[in-house]
């Protein structure tokens, strides 16, 4: 049967087709969606699995870290307690449990658990401390302000980590506990309020440290320190006392020396008088007995003089005021004077005194001119020879002199006296040491060798004593460095500087000088200056000559034997008649005011330094001889 074309059916058919296609589309979409869903589910499932695995991994890491922390705590001696403010529960770390003596107690929910543990005196303050911390934590939680938790007011964990006081942060409290078994511990608690960044919880985090040992050590250290302080104070006090005592002793010693020197000074003056008079004594018209007597008196007065000089010099040496004044010295002339004098004295006692020269190194000649302090050298020789004579009853005294090498001379005095026991030798040279020997009967103050030692040391030499190699007696020896110097020359003088008295006369100058060299020099210079010259050797002769008159000016050396320049000046000034006013110029190597003052005080008008310079001499003399004429500059 043929179907007629009906437009309604055609539409329907078209519509059915459309709908069929649409349905097909929808089903296909759905199928695809399901397939995609499957895919997605698979992806999701994988992601889940991965996530779970990660979480496990993290958890295990966390556990590991927690274990490490616990171990570290144990090693460092820290225990921790964490109190959860909200849940009102605390957890104790393993080491905290150990410290508190509560093993196995992992958690607690009330502070009363610690009551029995805590020392009764500390219980209340511990409660107060806990209350304070919890209040703080609660405030933080209530206001949600993290800054309240931090003493510095840091608002986040980062600032806290970066804070330089991070390690000291937290409220500290020390509490004494009795964990049992008779143990007493002091624990240091440090509490901080802590907000872990992601948990939103508020915790009070407490570290516990056993500081029993630390505190005990600190206490001990403090005690030790105090004890040390005390000891120190005692020592200081003692030192102070010692120092005072030392000063007192030194002062006493110095006072004694000064006194001694002062006394000697005073004694010296009349002594010089005695010696001076003895010098002038003409023993031509005396009997033998009388001459011998005079000889003894001379010798004794010499010894007395030496003793006095030594005391004064020793005191000066002690005070460090002994100074050498080296000048050209003719050795042969010196020995002649010195030894010659003592030979006479020895002879009067019946002792032979001999001088042997150049004995130590045969062929080595003794030098002619040396540079030395004549006065001190004489002092040295005088002392040694005087001692030799004093301590030798009978026999001989040998003086031996020579070079022992280039630049060193040796001088020996060998006596046949009683000798000195080896044990006593060292004492000899000490200041104010005393040597009392049986059978001698001549005890001295023993200064001579002391001053000898000082002089020798000043000269850079050595002194000593041993026994006489040839029999009984002693051998005193001295070794000195000596240097040969050329004999002094007169300088070439530019032009002439003639002096004259006010009335035009040639001036007559009296020179009192004990050293031959200086006398030669003075004579030469004064001659150049157009003066007549008279020479004397010592102060006494100077006084005598000045008293006779006719002198226009005296050049007075200060240090002379017999009578020095100061005494001579004084005596001249004390003369009756116009001669007392004769102008006197001091000749001295010393130019310090304190050294010149003595002679200026007694009447010298001025000073010329030694070695004498012609310009200076001329200037000083011209001022005196012709006061109206000024010196040329």
């Amino acid at each position, binding site marked *: 049967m043929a179907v007629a074309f009906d437009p309604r059916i055609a539409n329907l058919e078209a519509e059915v087709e459309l709908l069929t296609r649409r349905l*097909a589309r929808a089903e296909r979409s759905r199928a695809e969606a399901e397939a995609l869903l499957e895919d997605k589910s698979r992806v999701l499932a994988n992601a889940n699995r991965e996530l779970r695995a990660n979480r496990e991994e993290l958890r295990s890491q966390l556990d590991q870290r927690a274990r490490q922390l616990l171990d570290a705590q144990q090693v460092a001696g820290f225990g921790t307690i964490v109190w959860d403010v909200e849940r009102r529960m605390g957890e104790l770390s393993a080491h905290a449990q150990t410290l508190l003596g509560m093993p196995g107690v992992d958690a607690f929910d009330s502070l009363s658990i610690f009551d029995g543990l805590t020392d009764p005196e500390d219980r209340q303050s511990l409660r107060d401390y806990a209350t304070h911390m919890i209040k703080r934590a609660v405030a933080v939680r209530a206001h949600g302000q993290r800054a309240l938790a931090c003493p510095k007011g840091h608002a986040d964990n980062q600032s806290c980590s970066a804070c330089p006081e991070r390690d000291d942060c937290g409220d500290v409290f020390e509490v004494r506990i009795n964990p049992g078994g008779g143990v007493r511990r002091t624990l240091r608690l440090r509490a901080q309020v802590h907000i872990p960044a992601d948990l939103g919880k508020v915790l009070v985090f407490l570290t516990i440290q056993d500081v029993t040992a630390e505190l005990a050590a600190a206490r001990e250290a403090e005690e030790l320190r105090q004890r040390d302080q005390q000891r120190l104070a005692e020592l200081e006090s003692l030192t102070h006392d010692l120092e005072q005592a030392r000063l007192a002793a030194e002062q006493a010693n110095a006072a004694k020396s000064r006194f001694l020197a002062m006394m000697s000074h005073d004694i010296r003056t009349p002594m010089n008088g005695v010696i001076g008079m003895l010098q002038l004594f003409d023993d031509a018209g005396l009997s033998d007995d009388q001459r011998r007597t005079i000889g003894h008196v001379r010798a004794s007065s010499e010894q007395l003089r030496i003793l006095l000089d030594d005391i004064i010099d020793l005191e000066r040496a002690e005070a460090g005021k002994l100074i050498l004044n080296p000048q050209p010295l003719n050795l042969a002339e010196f020995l002649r004077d010195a030894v010659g004098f003592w030979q006479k004295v020895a002879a009067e006692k019946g002792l032979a005194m001999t001088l042997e020269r150049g004995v130590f190194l045969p062929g080595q000649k003794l030098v002619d001119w040396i540079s030395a302090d004549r006065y001190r050298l004489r002092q040295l020789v005088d002392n040694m020879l005087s001692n030799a004579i004093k301590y030798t009853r009978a026999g001989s005294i040998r003086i031996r002199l020579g070079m022992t090498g280039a630049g060193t001379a040796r001088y020996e005095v060998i006596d046949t006296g009683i000798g000195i026991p080896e044990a006593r030798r060292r004492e000899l040279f000490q200041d104010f040491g005393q040597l009392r020997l049986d059978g001698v009967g001549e005890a001295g103050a023993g200064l001579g060798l002391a001053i000898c030692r000082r002089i020798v040391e000043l000269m850079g030499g050595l002194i000593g004593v041993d026994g006489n190699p040839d029999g009984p007696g002693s051998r005193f020896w001295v070794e000195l460095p000596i240097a040969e110097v050329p004999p002094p020359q007169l300088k070439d003088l530019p032009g002439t500087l003639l002096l004259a008295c006010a009335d035009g006369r040639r001036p007559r100058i009296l020179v009192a000088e004990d050293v031959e060299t200086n006398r030669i020099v003075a004579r030469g210079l004064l001659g150049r200056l157009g003066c007549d010259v008279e020479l004397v050797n010592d102060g006494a002769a100077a006084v005598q000559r000045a008293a006779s008159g006719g002198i226009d000016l005296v050049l007075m050396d200060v240090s002379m034997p017999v009578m020095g320049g100061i005494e001579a000046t004084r005596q001249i000034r004390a003369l009756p008649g116009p001669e007392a006013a004769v102008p006197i110029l001091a000749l001295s190597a010393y130019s310090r005011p304190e050294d010149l003052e003595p002679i200026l005080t007694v009447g010298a008008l001025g000073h010329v330094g030694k070695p004498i310079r012609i310009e200076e001499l001329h200037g000083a003399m011209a001022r005196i001889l012709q006061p109206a004429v000024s010196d040329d500059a």
Partner: protein
Amino acid sequence: MKGVIFSEMIRWVEECLSPAVADRMIVGANLPNEGSYTSVGNYPHQEALAMMGQLTQITGRPVHELCQDYGYWLATRFVELYPQMFGGYTDALSLLRDIDNKHNTEVVKLYPDARTPAIIASVDGEDLVISYASHRPFADVAFGLVHGYIAYFGQSDQYMVSRDEDTPGPHAARFIINRA
């Protein structure tokens, strides 16, 4: 491009024009999957263009107009389909201001390889300026969407949307929204 654009386009044509037109469009576009799009799938945007091409032939209306109409209709559908993205907004301007953050972030979360358009919203005095740029030529759809969102909030008489003439579409556009 995400399947939802395709499936919604077909649905739009079916609802606003007619199923017959939709069918003719699909058949005429010669689509590889014959129009069975799932919203969770990913398909080449050229297929959408093909469909639009067919549509313009069928309706005789220009493509850009059709796209705008589609966009307008799509706005409502997006709100229905993804309530979590649109919840909490009471004002079209606030929504539009957040568009670039929300839209692309959400898409990329699920589809990390998606090449989403670059949408930047900025405030210029009293105006909100949204710039749109994409490798796909759907600026008109975006225009429509903007209108659609405003209409959804019932604020069509409050806000005016104008399009910057100096930014030629369809790959790029600048929409200036100001209070009327």
